[in-house]
């Protein structure tokens, strides 16, 4: 049962189908529990009021935005180094999911910022670097789309993903640096004391729900990609016979 056992699409599809069902059920269950805890059980913040509940979606999305890019970079490295056929597919499948989470993080952050900071957007270091991360996802997806030959596209996209992964910390650092130079404490930061358990639990449950949702979507997209390739191969075989 090596890594290459699952390079066989049939083995992979069978296992992925099974895991996908479980992960999907888990995601649904955790999401319902997490939303109940976050929207009903968790207390309103004494300073932020009910708006604090946006955080239960915002924070897990932001975590997932970074997690998906790390996953994308690792899958790309595996694809380039070991040429494992599923790694390409995993990288390709994870990009739109990551972009979705990044977008969700930006939108919920903006919705939270309006009542709390009085503005939809500030050029805060974190916001800016998440926005740039979103552009990196878009570039990655656009490169996949632009190159017709899927094997070439896979390699080019993998190189780009690794270059991006090297750059993410540099961009993050430079944006932090830029921010401290240009905007000394323009935004009231309310980190407050350490997070209270009544808010920590819903947050963790939501984070797990998002992760399970990611696994579900990832496997669904990978199976879809496999089926698309199979259809293409069948069409080609049909045309040549």
């Amino acid at each position, binding site marked *: 049962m090596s890594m290459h056992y699952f390079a066989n699409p049939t083995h992979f599809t069978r296992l992925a189908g099974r895991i996908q069902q479980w992960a999907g059920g888990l995601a649904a269950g955790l999401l319902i529990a997490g939303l109940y805890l976050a929207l009903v059980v968790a207390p309103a913040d004494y300073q932020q009021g009910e708006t604090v509940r946006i955080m239960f979606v915002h924070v897990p999305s932001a975590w997932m935005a970074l997690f998906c890019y790390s996953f994308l970079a690792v899958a790309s490295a595996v694809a380039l180094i070991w040429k494992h056929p599923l790694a390409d597919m995993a990288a390709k499948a994870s990009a739109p999911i990551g972009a979705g989470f990044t977008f969700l993080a930006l939108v919920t952050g903006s919705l939270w910022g309006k009542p709390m900071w009085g503005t939809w957007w500030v050029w805060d270091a974190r916001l800016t670097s998440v926005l*740039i991360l979103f552009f990196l996802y878009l570039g990655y997806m656009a490169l996949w789309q632009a190159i017709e030959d899927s094997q*070439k596209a896979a390699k*080019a996209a993998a190189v780009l993903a690794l270059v991006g992964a090297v*750059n993410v910390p540099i*961009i993050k650092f430079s944006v932090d640096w830029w921010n401290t130079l240009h905007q000394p404490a323009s935004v009231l930061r309310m980190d407050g004391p350490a997070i209270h358990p009544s808010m920590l639990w819903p947050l963790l449950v939501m984070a797990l729900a998002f992760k399970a949702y990611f696994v579900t979507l990832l496997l669904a997209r990978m199976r879809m990609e496999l089926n698309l390739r199979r259809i293409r191969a069948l069409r080609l075989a049909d045309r040549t016979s």
Partner: protein
Amino acid sequence: MKPLISIIARDLRLAVRQGGATLLALVFFVLTVTLFPLGVGPEPAILARIAPGVLWVAALLAAMLSLDRLFQSDFEDGSLEQLVLSGLPVGGVVLAKIIAHWMTTGFPLLLAAPFLAVLLNMNGEGFTALMLTMLIGTPALSLIGAIGAALTLTVRRGGVLLSLLVLPLYIPVLIFGVSAIDAAVHGLNAKPHLLLLAALTVACLPLCPWAAAAAVKLSLD
């Protein structure tokens, strides 16, 4: 070493014989900077405040627009393939082409920048820093851009895609470049910013040709 110098010489000769095409990046740079006073108004104080940022953003865009010349024509007429098959290290070939690209785009931008800074009424304290950041930073633009140019070689009309790939990666260069000039203008020490910018360029020097070479190779098979 000798073949690499001859590649640089060849690219420079090609650029000189093309004449006007080489200077287009420079013209673009001058034009973009000219648009800013028209856009934000002619008040000298405002222009002086935004001058470092405007110059750097315009330089960034000019460098990016000239990237398609880096490999594209050699790719189309087959000479890039010959260079890769010649047995020379591909990273070296790519580095030579990047150096030639910098000499034909980054260097003219560097020469034009102080004149444009005068037009934008930039504070006199900032000129040394401006020249230094341009000298240290523009090679990084060519180096990072080479990766994008190599990745989009096989893409038809890859210009917009190239900007999407390259501009996010240019952000650290922009930030350190502008903050060095800003520091100098405000009478602060520009050295830490310059050192960070130099560190960025030095880190790009071995890594970018390597990644670009990988991209060139896969677009040739």
